[in-house]
C-alpha cells in the first residue's frame, strides 16, 4: 500500500513533507492497517529514490504523532489509531492539503471565485472517476503477517 506514495520531484515542497502527508493519510484512512510493518528506512528510501535522512525524519515525525511505533530490532509498524484521533487526523490531513492547493492558486494570482470553481470541478471529476473501495491494494508482499 505504501507503494502508492508518489513524489513530485519538480515541486519545491520538501520531500519529507510530501511523504509524510501521504503516509499519514494512508494510516489515518485505515488503508494501512494497525500492525502493518513498514519497510526499513533504507528500503523505503530506495523505493522512493530519496535519502535515508528524509525517511528517518518521516518515521520520527509520525512516531511522535503516535501513528507509527518502532520496536528495536524488529521494525516500524502502524500503530493503533483511536477513532477520536482518526477523526482529528483525518481532517488535519485534508486541511493541510487544501492549504497547499490554495497557496498554489494564490501563487498564480487566482481569484477567490476561480479557486471555488476549480474546487468544484476537481471534486466533480474525482467523484466521477472514483474506483470502488478496496480495489487499489497492491498487497503488502507478505509483510502483513509479521508483527
Amino acid at each position, binding site marked *: 500500500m505504501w507503494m502508492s506514495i508518489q513524489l513530485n520531484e519538480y515541486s519545491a515542497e520538501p520531500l519529507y513533507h510530501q511523504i509524510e502527508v501521504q503516509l499519514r493519510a494512508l494510516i489515518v484512512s485505515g488503508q494501512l492497517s494497525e500492525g502493518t510493518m513498514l519497510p526499513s528506512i*533504507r528500503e523505503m528510501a530506495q523505493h522512493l529514490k530519496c535519502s535515508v*535522512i528524509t525517511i528517518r525524519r518521516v518515521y520520527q515525525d509520525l512516531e511522535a504523532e503516535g501513528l507509527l511505533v518502532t520496536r528495536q530490532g524488529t521494525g516500524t509498524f502502524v500503530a493503533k489509531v483511536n477513532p477520536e484521533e482518526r477523526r482529528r487526523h483525518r481532517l488535519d490531513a485534508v486541511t493541510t492539503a487544501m492549504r497547499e492547493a490554495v497557496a498554489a492558486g*494564490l501563487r498564480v494570482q487566482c481569484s477567490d471565485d476561480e479557486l471555488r470553481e476549480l474546487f468544484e470541478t476537481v471534486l466533480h471529476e474525482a467523484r466521477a472517476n472514483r474506483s470502488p473501495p478496496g480495489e487499489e491494494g497492491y498487497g503488502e508482499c507478505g509483510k502483513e503477517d509479521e508483527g
Partner: protein
Amino acid sequence: MNGQGGTAVRMTGVRLRQPHFQLGPIHLEVPAGFVTAIVGPNGSGKSTTFRLMLDLTKPDEGGIEVLGRTIGNGKSIELLKRVGYLPEEPYRHDNVIRGMDKAEFYKHWYPDWDVNHYRELLRLFEVDHSIRLGKMSKGMRRKFDLALTLSHHPDLLLLDEPSSGLDPLAWRTMIELLHRYMESGDRTILIASHVVEEVKRLADFIVFMVNGKVLGMYEKDELLTGWHQFYFPGGYEKWRAVLSEMPGLAGLEDAGGVVRAVTSSAREADAWIAARELVPAGRKSMELDDILAVLVEREKRQRQYGMKGVVQ
C-alpha cells in the same frame, strides 16, 4: 566511530601540491552510516582524494582519519582490511592471473573474507572467475572487482566511478547490492560518480568538488528540492537589480530574451516572488548536473575576479 552519528572519514586542512595540480585545502567529514557521493568534473581531485584516504598518496599538509584511526603513521595496514576500495581503473599488473587466483589472495589478506557471499555475487553478476583478468571484457572485469570488494564485508566502501563499463542490467544489480550492503545501518559508502541517476538513487549526502576544492556538502533531497530556476521575460538590464535580491540567488544570466535566475532556496524565492507580484514566464527544478554547472561557473568567476557575488 561506527553507526549513524559518527564520522567514517575526516580530512582536516589536507593539501597536496603536484606539478600540474593542487588539491585542497580540503576539509571533509564523511558521516558513518550513510552514502555520500562526490560529484565534480574530471580532474577535480576525486580519485586523488580516495588515494589519500587509503595512504596510497601522502598529503603535504593536513590530517586524515579513517574509521577513527589516523592515516599515515605506518599503522594503516590493519585498518585498510576494513575498507573496500574499487579504483577507477583496474590494476593492470594482475591481468595475467585468473579471477579465482585473485580471490584466493583476497582470502588470505582479508580476515572477514566470505566465500559464500563471493560466490553469490559472482552468480548475481554472471561472472566466470576462471578467466584471466586481462581477458575479461571491461564490464565483466568491473563486476568481478565489485564482487571482490564486497566479499570481505568492509565497514567502509570507497567506490571510484563504479559503474563505468556496466550494462544497464548489471548497473541495476549493483545499485540493489549497494542498498543491501547499507541495510545494516552501520556501514558507509563514499562514491565518486558522474552518473546523475546513480547519485540520485544511492546518495544521502552530496559533496561537490571542483578544481581540487570541496565546494560544499549537502543533504541530497534538500539540495534537489531547494535548487530551482526561474525564467523572467525581458532583458538582463531590466531584471538585474530587482533579481539580485532574490533569496538564494546562485546564478543570473541572459538566456536570449529571457533572464534565467537560479536559486538554492526555492521556497523562499517563491514567497519572495509572490510578495513582489513578479510573474515568471516559467520555472523548473534542477538536475544534479545543472546544479554542478552553476557551481563550476561561480567557482570559475570567483577565481578569475576574486568576487563573491553572482551578479556581474
